[in-house]
């Protein structure tokens, strides 16, 4: 049990220390304020352009994209902040298994990303009266897990750029907002120009 306990404790400390979420207000801000803001803005923008009947598409898409707060910002921060705080050389020189260390960093973000989607859905249902009674919940859950894992994978990939870049958070922000354009969140992928 001891290695498992160490793994879980290590995941937890990395999570709260490296994502600047050490305070409840900071956590609530990213977990509540940011999702509400994003869903509100893009759903209202979408309905302004295409009508109220399309609110479901925009609200659901943005709720699902909230996994990227954890997967992209969170995971990149856990790697990038090591460099910013000057602890990356110590981490790389330590005998700890690097694969386990970095996967551990993504692990809680995958779980927390799924919580973010659940919260986002509640926000979407309350704010835009979205009807999910006919949803295929099992398939939806599989989609949420897949999206959460894939955004964490993206986070690890772009986080590794902090080994060669000084400010990887520019990349994090760019990736996060590009996902809004190219992943069918606000525009159906089939409606994008051919080059996109």
């Amino acid at each position: 049990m001891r290695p498992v306990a160490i793994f879980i404790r290590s995941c937890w400390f990395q999570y709260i220390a490296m994502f600047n979420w050490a305070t409840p207000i900071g956590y609530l801000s990213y977990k509540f304020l940011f999702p509400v803001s994003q869903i509100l803005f893009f759903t209202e923008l979408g309905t302004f352009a295409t009508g109220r009947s399309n609110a479901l598409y925009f609200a659901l898409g943005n709720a699902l994209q909230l996994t990227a707060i954890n997967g992209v910002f969170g995971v990149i921060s856990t790697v990038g902040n090591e460099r910013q705080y000057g602890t990356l050389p110590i981490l790389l020189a330590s005998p700890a298994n690097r694969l386990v260390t970095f996967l551990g960093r993504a692990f809680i973000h995958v779980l927390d990303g799924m919580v973010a989607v659940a919260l986002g859905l509640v926000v979407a249902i309350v704010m835009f009266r979205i009807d999910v009674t006919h949803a295929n919940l099992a398939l939806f859950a599989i989609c949420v897990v897949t999206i959460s894992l894939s955004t964490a994978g993206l986070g690890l990939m772009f986080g590794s750029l902090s080994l060669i870049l000084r400010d990887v958070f520019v990349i994090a922000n760019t990736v996060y907002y590009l996902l809004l354009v190219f992943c069918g969140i606000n525009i159906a992928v089939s409606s994008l120009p051919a080059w996109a």
Partner: protein
Amino acid sequence: MSSKVRVITPFTYLGWLVYPLIIAILGLLILSQGSASKSAYAILGGGLIGFWGLAYQEGGNEIQNERWSGTLEQIMACPTPLAVIVVGKIASSLTFGLLSFIPTVLAAYLVWHMSLRNVDPIPFLVSFVVLTFSFFAVAISLAPLYAMWRWSNALINGFEIGMFALCGFMFPVAQLPHWLQAVSSVLAPAWATRSLYAASGQPYGHDYWLWCGLAIAISCVYLLISWALFRLVDKRARITGQLAFV
């Protein structure tokens, strides 16, 4: 000095070039599905968001950066008041924020062949100046919060996109639920943005001077609040001997 630092800071380029361009492309893609009458929102929206992003956060972020670099105590203790230093930093971020309109308007024109056609030039110019003043007032009133509370950054950052909606940068505030419209009415940039879009041919009427007057009056209230907050920061820092109160 602040501008010199910005020139070599990647985040500045994210703020005025990358971020507004992505949001503008998104806006143009979404709004081009609707009627052509909404094109002003698509053309100006991305630039406004970039301009706002730099103004809204950068004054405070500079204080946060000073804290993380361990230099906040030094700039507090130097003879120049903190407010004056922050004004310089915000003026610099506003200047860079203005650049946001270049990539967004160019993208709208070159890729989507959209341009502003029914612009009323004098109200447009006046509205833009008032908008800039209101951005400055918001930035200067938020900046002392960063010196007071460590968690201000997370809170203000978390609400950045919400402000796009409340200020009507990419769609009219009338689109929002009534209770949010009430919140929006106490935001100076929302009135200035309304005036700017009205001067760009949107069907809001021609009460430019009323909207600009409201934006200026509310901005002046923000400045008064800011003055009180800076005094509070200074006083409490001298009493407690620390800058991060909470």
